[in-house]
């Protein structure tokens, strides 16, 4: 630890208290959503609102999961996110490796362009993509949605992987090359195994970009490929303000990734901070 750490007991007590208050406030919205999802419909809309359910019920969950299209939307969300993650990695890993290892002028132009593309609003790309996928015969398919979502994650994956490849010492590869390993072989057998933590980080972020996407799903799916975020949003227009069912579906959709976040905390923090701190 560096010199910023406080050493006086009194100061530390104040810091703990402040932080505890902030964290409780920060955690409250989700905890409230969790409690709401277990309330009865009457209690959900009660005035004044309650925090803890007076009677706990899983009625909302049963309702949400028996709604037409909801189970299928989970299947769609998972398969779209998995496809998008794989496409993103397969494209980003070789590209990032080429940029960091060979440092050509073209590579520098490429990585800067990728960064610029990261800034394009989804609505700008999404609207013309409707026509592109229609012409390819891919309208309303998970594959088309996965391709569209990869436009969000690919630039990020390239930047993340480039940072991780940067950290691999050149000597390792040189000795592999001296031993007769081909260029592609040294990427596959030497570099990727060393940076598998980095590949995991890029995978998590690509998965999240797809899992949490709304606008591409809104533009590019209609029936067959609809994902859960669209179903969650539908609860408000279709059935008025059905907060109970909506919150239970939102909980079901969020809990897997929150658990993932806690389990893979170290990787996620590494991914979030690596580019920024090193850049």
């Amino acid at each position, binding site marked *: 630890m*560096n010199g910023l750490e406080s050493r006086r007991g009194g100061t530390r007590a104040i810091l703990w208290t402040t932080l505890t208050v902030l964290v409780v406030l920060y955690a409250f919205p989700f905890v409230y959503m969790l409690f709401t999802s277990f309330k009865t419909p009457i209690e959900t809309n009660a005035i004044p609102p309650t925090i803890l359910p007076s009677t706990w019920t899983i009625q909302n969950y049963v309702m949400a999961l028996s709604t037409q299209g909801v189970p299928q939307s989970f299947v769609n969300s998972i398969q779209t996110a998995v496809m998008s993650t794989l496409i993103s990695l397969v494209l980003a890993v070789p590209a990032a490796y080429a940029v960091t290892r060979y440092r050509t002028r073209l590579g520098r132009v490429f990585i800067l362009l990728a960064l610029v593309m990261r800034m394009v609003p989804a609505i700008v790309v999404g609207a013309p993509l409707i026509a592109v996928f229609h012409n390819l015969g891919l309208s309303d398919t998970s594959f088309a949605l996965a391709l*569209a979502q990869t436009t969000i994650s690919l630039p990020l994956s390239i930047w993340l992987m480039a940072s991780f490849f940067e950290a691999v010492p050149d000597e390792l590869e040189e000795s592999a090359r001296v031993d007769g390993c081909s260029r592609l072989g040294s990427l596959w057998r030497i570099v990727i195994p060393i940076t598998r933590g980095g590949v995991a980080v890029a995978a998590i972020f690509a998965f999240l970009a797809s899992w949490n996407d709304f606008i591409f799903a809104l533009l590019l799916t209609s029936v067959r490929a609809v994902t859960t975020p669209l179903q969650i949003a539908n609860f408000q227009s279709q059935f008025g303000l059905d907060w109970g069912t909506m919150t239970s579906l939102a909980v079901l959709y969020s809990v897997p990734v929150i658990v993932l976040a806690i389990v893979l905390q170290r990787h996620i923090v590494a991914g979030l901070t690596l580019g*920024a701190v090193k850049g």
Partner: protein
Amino acid sequence: MTAMTPERPATRPAAHSSRPSPPRARKRFRLTDNRFATLLMLPAALFLAVFVAWPLLQFVINSFYRYNPIAGGPHTFVGFDNYVRALTDAGFGNSAVRTIAYTAIVVTLEFVLGLTVALLFSGLGNRSRFFRTIFLYPLMIAPIVAGLLWRFLLIDNSGIVNQLLYEAHLISSPNQIQWLSDPNIALFSVALPDIWLTTSFISLVLFAGLQNVPGEIIEAARIDGAHYPTLLFRIILPLLRPVIAVALIVRGVDAARAFDVIVVQTNGGPQNSTNVLSLLVYNTQIANGNPGLASAMGTIYLFALMVVAVIAVLTIWRPGSDQ
């Protein structure tokens, strides 16, 4: 280009790999390192060309035509007519101002909150680990879920936020603040879920930056009798400048493109008070069925975003430069 890697900087210690390749690889075809690198970049470059650059080009081309996709009919070339209409349209100007205001609200509040939390984490050292884990969780939540959740928290009459403020005697009736239906404050209210979702990002990035501040510098300043505010504003913040720049650019670009969070909370209302550019472009394109005008608006929006972002990146961040 047939020479071996003329581009390679001389300082790069990887000089060995520019030796002639092993005979096995060279017998069949002459694949220089340069060509090999290009070949590896090609799939990703093609993907970005087909699914980003091409739609982008289509979008810009559409901005010079007038047509109606619902009613059908011909595509009429109208030159800069759509741009003139966009720039003279009061709605477009207002949306642009709202987008800037929204971005400013989000980035300022996230920075102040994020820095506070990062300094708290640093002050507590490794013991803050558990809190850092908890702080991570909103980053995983879909913006659409966050938007709906906050709409529920802030809803008139039965929102828990007003109820808690009322019970804390901060407001005189649980109905006093009309978070999402008062046009004067709605733009601020719709920003809350965005702030809630990504303050963690700023905190964690700044915390990582703070870990890299050399302890000796802070020790030396302390010995010289510097108080905490002096330490913060004269030493820590200037040292963190590149990290702060990256965090603010990333968040600024994202906030300027915000769509999900706003569309599910207010859909642009009340009285258009939250109708930012992303919503305006979307509604002009899809609901009003005027892709020509939407494309002109979107092109101006995109261009402004790019110019601001590229200037920010090139002047403050300088990616790829060695420190």
